[in-house]
């Protein structure tokens, strides 16, 4: 089997906040059609690393390659131009706006600065139905929608713009069982389309069952980068807590 080239390579990423070093030589790879679980405590650096990739923060030093090309990601718009979409934990929606406004936020369809509202509404309805989510009226403000509907807008935003790389920050944290199942189904579906997914979590249960690889962070450093199936859940938990890698026999 030929190894495809990685979608994302993050090398030697460092990030300082004043005197605090949030990331110290962090590494990460992501291949097409792969789901990578990014694990670690609060403050382990996983969210910071993802923010660097998403353009919400810039790294102090380090190198990012997208499909082999060295890139600079200064802001979220740069990240999007490389096909990187992010689904934030708190969904990053404006409650005072309707679904199309949220879906197209920051890249509104327009002609000479004038909004093409009807077109955006049509595409939103299409995107929602593609995800199998029914929203009574996309014209309602997002704040009166249920958690699942809001999640679907947030996911719809990522999927609609032909993402190659999707970062999911605790995508199931705020959801019920039914809704979580839907999200996981969607992750599997995206994966089968060759999209690379970075799944941030500190709950390892779902991550263990649905990821191909895991990357664990502790104190801003990589602990391990390995196939999920090489470890048991307990071993993963212990690495998250201790920050010490468990060395497996290479010839297992």
């Amino acid at each position, binding site marked *: 089997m030929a190894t495809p080239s990685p979608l994302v390579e993050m090398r030697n990423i460092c990030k300082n906040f004043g005197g605090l070093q949030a990331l110290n030589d962090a590494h990460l790879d992501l291949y097409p059609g792969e789901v990578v679980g990014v694990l670690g405590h609060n403050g382990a650096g996983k969210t910071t690393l993802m923010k660097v990739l998403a353009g919400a923060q810039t790294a102090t030093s380090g190198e990012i390659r997208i499909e082999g090309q060295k890139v600079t990601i200064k802001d979220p718009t740069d990240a999007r131009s490389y096909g990187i979409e992010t689904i934030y934990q708190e969904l*990053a*929606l404006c409650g005072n706006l309707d679904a199309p406004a949220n879906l197209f936020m920051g*890249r*509104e369809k327009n002609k000479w*600065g*004038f*909004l093409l509202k009807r077109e955006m509404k049509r595409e939103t309805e299409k995107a929602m139905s593609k995800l199998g989510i029914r929203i009574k009226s996309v014209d309602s403000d997002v704040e009166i929608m249920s958690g699942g509907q809001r999640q679907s807008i947030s996911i719809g935003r990522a999927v609609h713009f032909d993402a190659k790389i999707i970062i999911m920050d605790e995508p199931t944290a705020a959801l019920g069982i039914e809704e979580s199942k839907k999200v996981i189904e969607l992750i599997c579906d995206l994966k089968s389309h060759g999209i690379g997914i970075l799944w941030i979590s500190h709950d390892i249960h779902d991550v263990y069952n649905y990821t191909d690889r895991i990357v664990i962070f502790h104190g801003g450093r990589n602990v391990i980068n390995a196939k999920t199936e090489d470890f048991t859940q307990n071993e993963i938990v212990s690495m998250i807590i201790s920050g010490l890698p468990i060395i497996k026999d290479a010839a297992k």
Partner: protein
Amino acid sequence: MNLFATIRSHPLTWIILVSVLLAVVLSFASPYFFTVGNINNLMKQMSIVAILAAGQAMVIITGGIDLSVGSVLALSAVTMGWLIQAGVDPVTAAGCGLIMGTFCGFLNGFIISRGKIPPFIATLGMLGVARGMALVITEGVSYQVLEPFFLFIGNAKFLGLPIPIYFVIVTYALVHVIMHFTVLGRHIYAIGGKERVARLQGIKVDKQILKVYMISGFLAALAAVVMVGRLAATPPSVAQGIELQAIAAVIIGGISFAGGRGIVLTALVGALIMAMITNGLNILGISSFWQQVLIGVVIITAVWLDNLKRSDP
């Protein structure tokens, strides 16, 4: 959709009802209120606050505030007066006044977005700076402006309506289009809704904030053009405290101070209600000292009713 429900829930509906009610009450209270002369007078009185309120409403919807509009108005007016005094033709002078206002707005926006200084403080600073500059330029004296251009704007009529009203109509039409049909307007609501989200979603928040304060500054200068026309002079102390009236018009209009909510047109009705109160009390011969009391009560009542309406369903 149910048309009745749409009309019922529209933010303009209630405030227009209130203003109509007020007009009816005042018409019964004084036979003079609903006469052509008085209505024209009323519209002229309201026009300056209404123009300022349009810009103020945009700023407040972003979650900010612009305390400097009164001072910026004065500085723009003084700029025009000074240039006219120096022999510049009135249209160029008006243009320079507009540039001055827009520049003050630019400084506000720049200080807020780049300097990360809260709008309240940044524009409070500008309130002092612009008023002070107006006094420095004039050394405290008022220039007389008897140019036909300005007198026309202040006193002439077109199709039976005073010219300042056309300034108001055009201002609100343009601001309404910006707020509801352009990318900038959409971004203003997004920033007011949740600025952090707007940033994460790639909106150039700083750039858009800058534009909004520039629009507010420009409108303050536009109000100055009308003001100079009406006064035929540019006293540097003009429009002191008018920013509070503009803010009050926005609040009475039901635009949320938290940002992200409300329709700019309601600020126009808010300005109209305030002008009607002032005008009505004048006609009825009630002391102008009571006007301030009444307007204060109206502001609080408006917000209170708005809260009740929101928690209703």
